[in-house]
């Protein structure tokens, strides 16, 4: 990943939302991006740690959303 010292102006914002009713607790998202997703200790249901993760995590968050088995992760790339 290209880590230029000065963040580029047009860096996109990403808003993340999770649907806890749909989540089946498979934990794929937590394995991929533990900075953004966690699971409840008691039930394994997803917990969103960071609803607007930084640009360095966008690709991983997008991967998590696309492989989530219940499509419980929603992304709004425009914030």
């Amino acid at each position, binding site marked *: 990943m290209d880590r230029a010292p000065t963040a580029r102006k047009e860096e996109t914002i990403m808003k993340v939302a999770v649907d806890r009713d749909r989540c089946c*607790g498979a*934990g794929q998202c937590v394995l991929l991006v533990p900075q953004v997703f966690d699971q409840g200790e008691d*039930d394994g249901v997803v917990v969103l740690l960071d609803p607007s993760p930084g640009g360095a995590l966008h690709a991983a968050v997008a991967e998590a959303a696309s492989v989530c088995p219940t499509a419980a992760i929603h992304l709004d790339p425009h914030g």
Partner: protein
Amino acid sequence: MSESGPQEYPFRSQAPLEPPEQWERLRQECPVAPIRLASGDQALLLTRYEDVRQVLSDPRFTRRLDAEDAARVTANASGGVFGVASGGLAGGGGEAHQQWRRLVGRAFTAKRVLAMRPRVEAMAGRLVADMVERGSPADLVAGLGFPLPVWVICDLLGVPDADRDRFAYWSDTMLSMTRYGQEQIDAAQEEFAGYFRAHIAARRADPGEDLLSELIAIVDAADGRLTETVVLGTGQGLLVAGHETTANMIGKMAAMLLADRSRWERLCADPSLVRPAVEEVLRFDANPGFGMPRYLTEDLQVGGRTLPRGSTVVCSMGAANRDEGAFEHADAMDLGRTPNAHLAFGVGPHSCLGQALARTELQAVLEVLLRDLPTLELAVPPGALARREGLLVGGLRQVPVSW
């Protein structure tokens, strides 16, 4: 095609690591295909990615085929892995299922599974070392594939190491419809239940860190959420759902990666590919088994057609995983493929509860083999590998390897 009547299912492949030729034709020409099962009953086979995903994600339909007019999958009526996967108690839909899942799910969170990882690696290392000591060539299915998942489930349930081999024997026997007679199967079931009841009592007296101790604590809190039968059913259910599936996948993974040795060499050169490679192996599996049945309790629109209520639909995740509409160069194995939203674990509310653990086991096995046996190769030509036939979960009988 419709004039020729329903096709016999499951299909057979010409080569052990190649998909049946029907998959591509049906995806193209007949995405909702009438099939006839071993029981003689009829069902509809879905082979396209979008269709399979849609049906499996639909919470209204379950794999519990106990409706009167549901197709029987095998001649033996119990339905094997489909009936018992969630202890036979929550295989249906709705709230009871979700409640069971969230209770047991606490043992399968990513964090809990990551915490198990060093132990899984140590178990894999130990099995590989034993295999090496017995000498080359060896059968990787018997030496590594079948024992590892049982050891892991024993760990999860707090079963002492000394009892693992007995556990493995019961599990092998309860699963195998072919090698053992009904009497042996019944005896194994009986002994397993007896052992497990005693084990529950021992854990109750002296709780540990394991899932079973936690479940017992919930039973004893007597809030009506779980009964002892559910604890027993859950233990057996985890064995049924997590043993044969993972065991076979370990053998198929090794076979797929060694059949074209440039794949193995690429992984040796870059072990960071292990994670995506495991996903690609799961996607590429040409012999995943029967597929997932669903009984339609209502009419359903799939791919522009109406499937009538009362139908039994079989979702071929294997065929869906080779759909060009969902995966670029679907017929090529790409060890770095990302993202890889394959359907090997199903999707939706019933998707595999143990998938984080299964992934961990497969990754650990692959890492240990690459580390300890980089010279590993198939000891027979890939075409000489033989499939295990007639079972719900696909696999290879043996994977002879040398190093």
